[in-house]
């Protein structure tokens, strides 16, 4: 919290309550979006742990896979996936606002910029799937 | 009411709209040593300049000439404009437009990057610069934001000037209420410029914002300066019924058509034809405002207008212009129509009717914005120089703000450079008297009259007597009612007695101003026994140059105003019949 101004007598200074983010749907969506960063971080750490376990040999890896397949873990991962998807969608939406793409004199409509991100995502995903399923 | 008397400046400008801000910048550029103050009852970006839509006229193209702009203006004024002033005005206009462009104003542009110009009512040639259809908004914000550059411009935001301080016959400042805390103080200056706008709110239906209450006109009037040509009130032909919200003349400049209830472009019946698809300068919908407003009233009398919950109206049809052009050049018109009358002009015609829009009259000034009171200057709608005479052409007033705002700033600055500082002792006494006056007039315990009641009675009287068509009996009745309202106003009672942000007190002060302005309008109108420009009388339907080729001057007296006259300056354009 930073106070920018000294208080003047007579003026009433309203204070935002801790539940300020429940007041508008836009604020709630914002908070959910910010929370997605936690799940993204968890996924990153998990990936590092998996890599580390692979390095420790097939038994360590098999143990870890068994743990990951427990019901609790699966439920957690479904929720986490939802948050990460929301993270991705809101990120793509933001690019339409943030990135101004010019073709000659005219500005590319934001919806097209956003669509471009989705197309790139689908193409990349298809490529990875092909490489993982077909080539290996 | 307590107060602080320590505010001293060289030039004090009352009103922070287009004229006031332009004057402030001009004064600063005249000399950086001067301390310039801008005092406004609202924050400057709220000033009514912000609502102007259509454009600002100046000679910018090779197919145009200063003489043509001058002739159009003088013709439009029904020969009541002072021609030497008009010549100076059209000469300085182009430079002011470029200067504002250099200050960042986002004028609409031609493909080659030059500022665009469009057709406008009464103008022979395209010469109206515009910033989409929010020209006043962009001009005001460009001026306000530019004024922030200068440290020597000090602002008094939300202060209300209640009287001019006059010492030894010289204006030396104002007494003003700081609305935020209710204190009354003196702000002294060697020169005061009044840029407070017009007084359209004396009428019930107007394009004008709530703040247009003629406060500066009243300040000058009470200090003994005359109000010139007050009888000339302009009705804008296309306001929205009910609210009076302005639909810019630019809609007609872009090619909009006015149609009566039979879908007929009725203006051709009144000498403005022939009707063409594309707009032709000065014809049909591009005729001058006073004539178009009268045509509407005559259609109404013939029973050919629509009838709605807010009275008679006609249609402004923009459908044939297409969505693309409307969104490019008239986006604000589309937004206003949709929001306030639920009409999308791309698909349906807009209901419109004449509403009060502008006062050609105001504080009498000379070509350098100087009033007869020493140390007092005025510019903008509050002043009457006169370039607009009996009827103003659309897009001349935004230009007027710049040309005469700059002239006023320079004149006031030069005056201030030559004068010694204002003496503080006489001022302290004047302010003390003013505090007592305000306490006894407005904060009395035994007040009985309500502000809204007096205001509405005044507005009705003005609508009845000083409308588009006037005649002796109704004007006399209006003058009488206004005198009675003055008496009732003396017994005004406020329910708000607080010091902090007392807007009821401000409303009472504004009503005080409006009653003065209304009396000047009605009495000047009664004595002008002719029809000229926007002043049309059924009992004197012809223009009478022999008796009335002169300006009226209204002077305040304890009773009804005393009306005197001043000849019109004619240079190169002798009066002729005004036909379009």
């Amino acid at each position, binding site marked *: *919290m*930073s*106070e920018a*101004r000294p208080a003047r007598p007579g*003026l009433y*200074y*309203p204070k*935002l309550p801790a539940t*300020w*983010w429940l*007041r*508008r749907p*836009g*604020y709630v969506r*914002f908070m959910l979006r910010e929370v997605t960063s936690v799940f993204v971080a968890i996924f990153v750490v998990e990936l590092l742990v998996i890599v580390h376990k692979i390095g420790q040999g097939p038994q360590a890896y098999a143990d870890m896979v068994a743990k990951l397949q427990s019901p609790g873990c699966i439920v957690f991962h479904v929720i986490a996936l939802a948050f990460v998807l929301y993270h991705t969608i809101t990120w793509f939406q*933001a690019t339409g*606002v*943030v990135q101004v793409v010019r073709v000659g004199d005219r*500005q590319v409509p934001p919806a097209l910029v956003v669509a471009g991100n989705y197309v790139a995502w689908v193409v990349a995903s298809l490529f990875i799937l092909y490489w993982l399923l077909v080539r290996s | 009411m307590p107060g602080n008397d320590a505010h001293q400046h060289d030039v004090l400008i009352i009103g922070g709209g287009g004229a006031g801000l332009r004057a402030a910048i001009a004064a600063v550029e005249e000399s950086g040593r001067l301390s310039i103050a801008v005092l406004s009852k*609202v*924050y400057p970006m*709220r*000033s*009514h300049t*912000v*609502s102007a839509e259509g454009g600002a006229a100046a000679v910018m193209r090779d197919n145009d000439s200063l003489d043509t702009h001058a002739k159009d203006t003088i013709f439009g004024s029904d020969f009541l404009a002072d021609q030497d002033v008009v010549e100076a005005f059209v000469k300085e206009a182009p*430079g002011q437009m*470029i*200067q504002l*462009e*250099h*200050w*960042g104003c*986002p004028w*609409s*542009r031609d493909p080659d990057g*030059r500022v665009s110009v469009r057709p406008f009512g009464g103008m022979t040639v395209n010469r109206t610069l515009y910033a*989409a259809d929010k020209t006043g*908004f962009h001009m005001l914000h460009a001026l306000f*934001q*530019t004024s*922030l550059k200068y440290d020597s411009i000090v602002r008094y935001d939300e202060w209300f000037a209640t009287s001019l301080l006059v010492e030894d016959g010289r204006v030396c400042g104002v007494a003003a209420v700081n609305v935020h805390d209710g204190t009354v103080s003196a702000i002294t200056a060697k020169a005061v410029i009044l840029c407070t706008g017009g007084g359209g709110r004396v009428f019930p239906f107007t394009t004008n*914002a*709530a*703040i247009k209450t003629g406060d500066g006109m009243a300040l000058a009037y009470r200090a003994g300066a005359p109000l010139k040509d007050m009888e000339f009130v302009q009705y804008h032909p296309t306001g929205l019924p*009910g*609210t009076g919200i*302005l639909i810019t003349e630019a809609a007609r400049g872009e090619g909009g058509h006015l149609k009566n209830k039979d879908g007929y472009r009725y203006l051709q019946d009144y000498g403005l034809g022939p009707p063409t698809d594309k707009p032709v300068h000065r014809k049909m919908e591009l005729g001058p405002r006073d004539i178009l407003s009268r045509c509407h009233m005559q259609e109404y009398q013939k029973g050919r207008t629509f009838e709605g919950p807010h009275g008679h109206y006609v249609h402004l049809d923009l459908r044939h212009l297409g969505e693309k052009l409307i969104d490019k050049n008239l986006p*604000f018109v589309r937004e206003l129509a949709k*929001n*306030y009358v639920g009409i999308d002009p791309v698909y349906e015609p807009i209901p419109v009717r004449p509403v009060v829009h502008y006062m050609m009259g105001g504080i009498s000034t000379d070509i350098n914005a100087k009033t007869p009171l020493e140390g007092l200057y005025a510019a903008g709608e509050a002043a009457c120089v006169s370039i607009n005479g009996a009827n103003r052409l659309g897009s001349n007033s935004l230009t007027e703000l710049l040309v005469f705002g700059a002239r006023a700033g320079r004149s006031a600055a030069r005056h201030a450079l030559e004068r010694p500082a204002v003496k503080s002792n006489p001022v302290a006494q004047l302010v003390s008297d003013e505090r007592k006056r305000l306490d006894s007039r407005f904060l009395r315990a035994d007040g009985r009259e*309500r*502000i*809204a009641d007096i205001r509405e009675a005044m507005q009705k009287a003005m609508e009845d007597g000083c409308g588009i068509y006037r005649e002796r009996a109704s004007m006399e009745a209006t003058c009488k009612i206004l005198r009675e309202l003055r008496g009732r106003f003396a017994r005004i009672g406020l*329910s*708000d007695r607080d010091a*902090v*942000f007392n*807007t*009821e007190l401000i409303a009472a002060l504004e009503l005080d101003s409006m009653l003065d302005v209304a009396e000047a309008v009605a009495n000047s109108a009664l004595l002008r026994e002719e029809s000229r420009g926007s002043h049309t009388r059924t009992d004197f339907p012809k223009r009478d140059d022999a008796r009335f080729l002169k300006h009226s001057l209204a002077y305040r007296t304890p009773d009804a105003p005393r009306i005197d006259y001043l000849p019109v300056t004619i240079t190169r354009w002798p009066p002729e019949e005004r036909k379009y």
Partner: protein
Amino acid sequence: MTEETITLEVTRYRPGHDREPRTESFSVPYRKDWVVLDALNHIKDRVDGSLTYRWSCRMGVCGSCGMMVNGVPKLTCSAFLRDYHPGPIRVEPLANFPVIRDLVVALDDFLEKLRRVKPWLIRETEKPVAEGEYRQTPAQLDAYKQFSMCINCMLCYAACPVYGLAPAFVGPAAIALAYRYNLDSRDEGYRVREPILSDSVGVWECTFVGECSVVCPKGVDPAAAIQRSKVAGAKDWAMSVLMPWGGRK
């Protein structure tokens, strides 16, 4: 026939008398073409002359009449009673600003910030007026036009939780106006405005909640202005690290 009415629940606050704001209920005529401002005017003219609020143009261009209507920042001259029928309608002063009285808030903070971002055309050399206008094509005008539409109504500041929690934040409207000048082809002041925008209370205080753009009545999209300024600022920083010797615009 009795006229239909609608209830307004209006915040009242008298400095020196009230410790904190309270709510007062008023019943006003329900008219289909009335806006909330018309209802407030009715109360002031006919019921309670001490009700205090700002207004002027009543057509959505002066920016005076911003207030919270049912918790949402709105221009009361453009908020139609019919959209809130049957009511009641809560009318409160603009959020995140100190309240002077009733529905009037203090705007000093914004005006100081507006001045701070230097919202005027800055150039190395000025062209003389006699040489005419700076050329600007319609495309160059379109590049910044949207951001020049700000009416300074402060609805964006009322919607911004960051401004509410950290009032030192320069804020949406001020940054959008700085961005408008940065984008103006006639302007050369990007470097002058940079320290103010890249300050910690400048663009980087924003967390892209985006509500400012949602409530803006003029479609200015200040959120876009701020994020794009962040991109520009980040690029500048990267260039200054990679090429410290290079001079740019």
